[in-house]
């Protein structure tokens, strides 16, 4: 059962990821990104991260991809990009080599060190029928307990991001003093 879930979600993730890279239309790339994000959410559920799966669907697939689509439509760049022309001849083979190198190195590191890691923490409580919200409680104890300072700094980060974006995208109007 777990194997079937893994294979299906992995297929979603890989097809979506390849779609983002290979589709020449930006809207199609954004929709492929949604497929990948849902696959990752399924993986989160099968790894006992239920709250993060919900956040993944709501924040990533719900907010971030909608923001991408909104910007694509706003800028009017929703036309097919010509992927045949290459500005630099050697770039694509080099990029594929770099990508395969990254995958190969990380895979080698994972496979060689798969017996090294041992259980260290207190354990992640698997939700049961009698205790369905244990993951949320455990995660909230961590966020609002051990990492509460980081959580508060996060709010500063969000305010800075919002104010900065408003300043960046604002149209500069000539003031009446300058125009006189």
């Amino acid at each position, binding site marked *: 059962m777990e194997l079937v879930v893994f294979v299906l979600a992995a297929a979603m993730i890989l097809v979506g990821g390849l779609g983002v890279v290979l589709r020449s239309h930006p809207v199609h790339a*954004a929709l492929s990104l949604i497929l990948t994000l849902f696959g990752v959410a399924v993986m989160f559920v099968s790894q006992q991260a239920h709250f993060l799966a919900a956040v993944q669907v709501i924040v990533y697939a719900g907010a971030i991809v909608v923001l991408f689509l909104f910007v694509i439509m706003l800028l009017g760049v929703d036309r097919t990009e010509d992927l045949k022309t290459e500005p630099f001849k050697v770039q694509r083979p080099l990029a594929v080599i770099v990508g395969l190198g990254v995958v190969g190195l990380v895979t080698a590191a994972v496979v060689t060190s*798969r017996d090294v890691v041992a259980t260290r923490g207190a354990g992640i409580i698997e939700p049961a029928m009698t205790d369905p919200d244990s993951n949320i409680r455990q995660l909230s104890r961590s966020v609002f307990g051990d990492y509460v300072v980081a959580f508060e700094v996060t709010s500063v980060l969000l305010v800075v991001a919002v104010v900065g974006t408003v300043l960046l995208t604002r149209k500069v109007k000539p003031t009446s003093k300058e125009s006189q």
Partner: protein
Amino acid sequence: MSALIAAATPTTTWYLVLAAVLFGIGTVGVLVRRNPLVMFMCIELMLNAVNLTFVALAKRLGDIGGQTTVFFVMVVAAAEVVVGLGIIVSIMRKRPGANVDDISALKG
């Protein structure tokens, strides 16, 4: 055959290798594509690969800290997308249809 399928339960290594492949796809996308929006989407792919790694290792190590880290990574990713798209919008307003080669110089 059914015994083989029953024996092959996905271990943490499977998840980590899958995350590595997804990260590689994102890397190739950033290096190959010319549209700044699609490059941004590829960065999101890489962030998701790292999130998957964190969650898989949180279960493997029995430590909820990995999931907490993913929570903060998501917040930072949301802020990053907002700022990045703001920059892209303000650039594209001046030069419609620009790709990253056209805007490689840091001046307007």
